[in-house]
């Protein structure tokens, strides 16, 4: 247990990260500026899994974990599509999820943007010719940005979000 008195006297030191990624931090700060300009300082993202192999989801969760902590740049992941600005769709859209993805898209209020995350969602990937799969997300929704990768790393996802901001500014 920490001695409360020592806490007042000694300087507070948190754990030192040896893996600090300066490139990630720079992209993050740029993203924060763009979000402040376009989305009024808060970008609400709703993630929809339409049939991925769960690795893009893990990378998105890693974005919110302490190492990357993307919420400090103004990005938050929301529970309801009705609160969302951007829909991130992962996975090649399976026949069983087709209706659910469309309903989620319809429930999102305008203005909305769709990002396809991962090779499956972009229409490449091993499942693209399967009977059980529609293909990429662009087969059923209008996609504004594709982020390829199997899965894309958290840095790639952040670069993708920055590219989305550029696209929104210059349609």
């Amino acid at each position, binding site marked *: 247990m920490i001695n409360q008195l020592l806490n007042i006297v000694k300087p507070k030191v948190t*754990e030192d990260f040896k*893996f600090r990624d300066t490139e990630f931090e720079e992209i993050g700060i740029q993203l924060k500026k763009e979000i402040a300009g376009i989305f009024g300082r808060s970008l609400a993202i709703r*993630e*929809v*899994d*339409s*049939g*991925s*192999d*769960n*690795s*893009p*989801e*893990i*990378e*998105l*969760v*890693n974005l*919110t*974990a*302490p*190492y*990357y902590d993307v919420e400090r740049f103004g990005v938050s*992941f929301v*529970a*309801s*599509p009705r609160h969302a600005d951007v829909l991130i769709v992962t*996975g*090649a859209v*399976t*026949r*069983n*999820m*087709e*209706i*659910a993805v469309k309903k*989620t898209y319809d429930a999102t209020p305008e203005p909305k943007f769709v990002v396809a995350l991962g090779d499956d969602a972009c229409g490449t*990937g*091993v*499942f693209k*010719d*399967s*009977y*059980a*799969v529609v293909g990429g997300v662009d087969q059923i929704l209008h996609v504004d940005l594709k982020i390829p990768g*199997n*899965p894309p*790393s958290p840095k790639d996802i952040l670069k993708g979000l920055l590219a989305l901001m550029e696209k929104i500014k210059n349609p």
Partner: protein
Amino acid sequence: MDKKEVIGLLDGNTSEGCVSEGCGGEFYADVKEENFKEIINSIKSKSLILVNLFCAENFEGYFGFTLFYVFEKRGDRNFIILKRRIEKDKTTSICEDYPAAYWYEREITDGFGVSFRGIFDDQRLFLHESYPADFHPLQKSFTNRKIEVKKTILPQEEYGFKNVFGEGVYQIPVGPVHAGIIEPGHFRFSVIGELILNLEVRMFYKHRGVEKIAEGKTPHECVKIAESISGDETIANSAAFCSAVEKISKIEVPERAIYLRTVFLEMERIYSHLGDLAGMTVDVAFPVGASPFFILREETFRHNDMLTGSRFMKGIMDVGGLKKDVSSEALSNLSVFLNKFTKRFDEALDIVRSSPSVLDRFERTGVVKKELVSTLNLTGPVARASETAIDTRIDHPYGIYEKIKPSIKVMGEGDVKTRFEVKASEIIDSANIIQKLINEMPGGSVNSKYKISDGFSLSVLESPRGQNVHWVYVKNGLVDRYKVRTPSFCNWRAIEHAVIGDIVPDFPLINKSMNLSYAGTDL
């Protein structure tokens, strides 16, 4: 086990000529339709556990359907597989004796069109309402292609959930799109107030047709498909597939490759369990306690990247070994990381264990009773937390585990706290195993030249979630039938029992404590 024992187990209902040993050490017994019910009775009386049930068409010259029933005898190394040839596309179900068989049988009905008399629930399993009726994708007559699906679904075609009636009882449908960043699945709760009376799980929203697209490809091409079944079981699934092919073609995997494969398998176990511990702590609203686990998990991902070039270790596994070697620099970095790992991990555990509010949420929540383990074939940490000492690495050893035995922790309460402790002890054990492997790492090449022979084999290994069963049938050098059953397929049934009597807000916690793969179930 030997052939005589197998015949003894089946009470003499089969003869010496009908029992053969497979490439992976399993025993196949051809059973006749007239003796089938008796054989199932004798198997049940000897407490054998149903591990898998699948179908293959046009197997070894028989143009109809052959059903394979895979059984395990506790304490015995070898699996027993009953081969049942069926005449037409109707046969009898074994649900009366093995209730857990009905998911397997519904899967066979969807895939092949074989109907089972006496099954409890004959609704479609992995083909949801939009697929046309009489569509059976795994039949040889259907070549993989895009199909027309129904645009509208009538109310009478909708999936029927069990209804619970009473004053004040209502249903909460959750999913398939969930509130967090998680995979899709549907949970239908019947609730009174906050207390859960019944839960029905409906999966297969992510059915991508893994087994069908594997057919007709070379084993080398199929490795990528095996990796894509479930992202956080990449190594477990691809190692099981490669191991089955290697057993069929009698390929000798170089020693260095075996050591490295085991390092990857244990790394996967570490990052998977770290994610569970973090998720459980977040679900009880204690993010301070979860953060150290997230930090360690991110560092594990980065070490995966240094070892193999991919954070999920994709693209490294190959038939006959590995696609490329791992640098000694990456291995020594990993060794340095693991040296400091135990102290940091113990500190993180102390934070969680000394929080009374977390313990209050964890204890006595989501209890999985011991009797369910063998009935539903629960495996992995879920079983070990319910007083059942099973682990494929010890019961059916493979690779390095013949020499290096992992130590497993078995606890009795079966609640969330017990699963937390079991996973924590497995992480420390895996870290120790990897250190041992790095210290004893042999040199040499990591792949070998090979020629693919025809044949079929079972391959069973312990993924982070439990027992992972793959069966591969190679014909004319190409994969003719690939059956995958990840541990999540069996473990999902446990959730329906574990939540009864708990409140709805406990459900995310119980779900996370079992951490099942939706993608691994749905294929």
